[in-house]
C-alpha cells in the first residue's frame, strides 16, 4: 500500500520541531508499524537525509521502548504497543500522523525519542522491596493467596512505556505509579514498607472493605 506520513521532526531538545510529510510506497500489510518506519528510514538514508529517530528495542511488546502517538492515539489504533501494531490496521492511501509522547515529564530528545527517566525516579523513590541479596527466607515460608499473587502480577506487568502519561489529558503518571504501589503493597513481602512507600488517607480496613464490597 501507499501511505502519506506526517512525522514530528525535531533536531534536539532546544530546537522547535514541526511535522514533516513523507510518502512511502510498497508497504506490506504484514509489516509491523516500525518496519514501515524502517522502510522510510532506509529511503531517507540513501537520499542523504537523517532518518527519523524513534525508540524501539525488543519489538515483541514487552520492553516498553517504543513510544509513538499515531493519529492521536498512544501506540496507535489497536490495543497493543507500537511494535506489535501491523500495517493491516491501515488502508491504502491513508495519511498517518506520527508524534512523540508529549508531556513536560518526557522532554523530546530527538524526533520521536523522549526522555523517560522520570519513570525511573518514581521507582527510585520507593518502588521496591528492601530485600538485600542473601537475606531471603525460603520461598515457601510465606504463602501468598493466589488472588493476591494474581493481583500483584496484573499490576507488575506494566511495561513502563509511558503511554498512560502520553494519553492522559493531564500528562499524569498516576497509572504507572499506582500499578507499582498495588503490585508491592498487596504482597506480604511488601507489607513492612507499605506506609513509607505510599501514604493513604483512609485506614487500611476501609480499603479492604471497599475491595471486598460488590
Amino acid at each position, binding site marked *: 500500500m501507499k501511505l502519506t506520513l506526517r512525522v514530528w521532526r525535531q533536531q534536539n531538545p532546544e530546537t522547535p520541531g514541526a511535522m514533516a510529510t513523507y510518502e512511502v510506497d510498497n508497504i506490506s500489510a504484514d509489516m509491523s508499524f516500525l518496519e514501515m518506519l524502517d522502510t522510510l528510514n532506509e529511503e531517507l538514508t540513501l537520499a542523504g537525509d537523517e532518518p527519523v529517530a524513534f525508540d524501539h528495542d525488543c519489538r515483541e511488546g514487552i520492553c516498553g521502548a517504543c513510544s509513538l502517538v499515531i493519529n*492521536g492515539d498512544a501506540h496507535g489504533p489497536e490495543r497493543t504497543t507500537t511494535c506489535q501494531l501491523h500495517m493491516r490496521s491501515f488502508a491504502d492511501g491513508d495519511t498517518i500522523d506520527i508524534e512523540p509522547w508529549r508531556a513536560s515529564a518526557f522532554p523530546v530528545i530527538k524526533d520521536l525519542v523522549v526522555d523517560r527517566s522520570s519513570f525511573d525516579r518514581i521507582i527510585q523513590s520507593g518502588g521496591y522491596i528492601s530485600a538485600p541479596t542473601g537475606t531471603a527466607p525460603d520461598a515457601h515460608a510465606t504463602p501468598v493467596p493466589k488472588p493476591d499473587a494474581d493481583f500483584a502480577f496484573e499490576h507488575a506487568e506494566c511495561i513502563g512505556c509511558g503511554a498512560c502519561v502520553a494519553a492522559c489529558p493531564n500528562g499524569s503518571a*498516576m497509572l504507572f505509579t499506582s500499578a507499582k504501589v498495588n503490585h508491592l503493597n498487596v504482597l506480604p513481602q511488601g507489607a513492612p514498607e507499605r506506609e513509607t512507600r505510599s501514604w493513604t488517607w483512609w485506614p487500611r480496613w476501609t480499603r479492604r472493605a471497599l475491595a471486598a464490597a*460488590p
Partner: protein
Amino acid sequence: MTRTLWDSTVGKKTIMAVTGLVMLGYLVAHMVGNLKIFFGPGEFDGYAHWLRTMGEPVLHYEWALWLVRVGLVAAVVLHGVSAYQLSRRDIKARPAKYVHKKPRASYATRTMRWGGIILALFIVWHILDLTTGTVHTSFEAGHPYQNVIDTFSTWYGNVIYIVAVLAMGLHVQHGFWSAAQTLGVGNATRDRILKTLANLLAAVLTVGFISVPVAVMTGVVS
C-alpha cells in the same frame, strides 16, 4: 500530613472529591427544600424560617444556618482553589500540544472547568439575588416565596438560573464519578453502577431545580 495532602496532586484531588461530595449533599437537600414551593407560600416560608431555628435550643437563632454557610464557603473555596491549581499543573504538564487532535472525553468531562466557573459566578448572583436581595428588584426579607416568584418572572432570571442548573447537572454527572475514582471507590466492575448513579443524580437534581422556574413560568406556582 497537610504537606502531603495539600502539595500532592493526589491530595488536591482528594480535597476536590470530598468538598465536591459535601456540596453535592447540600444540593440534594437544597433541591428537596425548593420543592416545598409546590405546597404554597405558608409551607415554603415556614420551611425557610425553620432553617433559621434549626438546632434550637442547643444552638441560637441562625447558628446552624451559619455553620452550614461557613462549611459551604470553605468547601467552595477549597474546591475552587484546588481546581485552579490542578488546572495549572495540567496545563504545565503538556506545554506542547498534540498536532493530531482527537476528542478524548465526554462533553461533561470537557466542560468541567468552564462549568465550574459558570457555577461559581452563578452562586454569587444567586446569593445577591435571593439571600441578600442586593440585585433583586423587589426583595422582601422573610418572604422567600414571593422573592422566588419575582425572580422567575423576569426573563433574565430564568435564563441565568436554567443555564446554571444545566451546567450543574453536567458538573455533577462527571464530578460524582470522578470523585469516586479519586477516593478509590471505582473499579472496572463498579464503573457502570457509578456512572448510572452519577447520571441519575444529575438528572434528578436538574429536573428538581428546573421545575421551580418552569412552574412559575407556566403559572403552576404564582
